[in-house]
């Protein structure tokens, strides 16, 4: 009669099965491709100071942009967007410091965001700081 386990022990190799690793890896790749956003949005950086607005923060000679509907006014004169850019570039805001970089931006209620955005872009691209003017109630 043969005894159980009497013979030599079965030698099992301790190898980890890696055959399916590449399949798992490619599945993960597909997941990341689907979940990834590669498109970068385009934007302008609007530098707006935080804190409560005060009347003293604005000097009397602070340049002001007024938006009335689709119309742009700079220092109370009606201008086109190109002219506004030229006028702001002429102010050399990048070389100035502190309050002198500030441009007041005031808009009427019917001003669409499209026009406001263009004015914001003009100010920030010329190195200015935007100060929003609120209407008095």
């Amino acid at each position, binding site marked *: 009669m043969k005894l159980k386990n009497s013979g030599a022990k079965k030698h099992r190799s301790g190898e980890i099965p*890696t055959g399916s690793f590449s399949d798992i890896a490619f599945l993960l*790749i597909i997941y*990341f491709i689907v979940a990834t956003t590669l498109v970068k949005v385009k934007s302008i950086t609007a530098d707006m100071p935080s804190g409560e607005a005060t009347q003293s923060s604005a000097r009397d000679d602070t340049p002001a942009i007024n938006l009335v509907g689709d119309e742009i006014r700079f220092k109370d004169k009606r201008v086109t967007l190109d002219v506004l850019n030229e006028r702001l570039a002429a102010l050399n805001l990048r070389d100035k410091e502190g309050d002198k970089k500030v441009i007041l931006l005031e808009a009427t209620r019917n001003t669409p*965001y499209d026009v*406001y*955005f263009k004015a914001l872009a003009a100010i920030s691209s010329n190195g200015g700081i935007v100060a929003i003017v609120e209407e008095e109630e």
Partner: protein
Amino acid sequence: MRRGLKKKKRRTALVPVASMGDIAFLLIIFFLLLSDYNKEKSPPMTLPVSNKVEKLDDQIAARVNIDRDGVIYLDGVRVHDGKDIQAGVEALLERTISDDQRHVQFKCDASQPKDVYEPVLQAIAEAGGIIEAVGEDE
């Protein structure tokens, strides 16, 4: 003598696949590092146009959207007004250390009136966010 009857040698065409797993894992690491999960579904809107817009490379701390119906969203969640935005952005920026971590993406429909977008812009500024106003290139 047998001429012209050379036996053609059959060559087995084995594609080397041993390194496929390594390549795959390298690709995974690449996508892991470059991934930016889409935190919110963009509501329907027409973006404003300008020739001054530049590609946004900064890390975004919060996303504020205003759709064409004037509905405001913070990171995809509908909020009521500017006060909600200020509280939400303040909370998100609470643990930030440097200015680079305070960029807030602002998307707004081009047709929205001042009463809708300006309080939101002010709220972001009050909360200490740096506004990244999204637009399209001309």
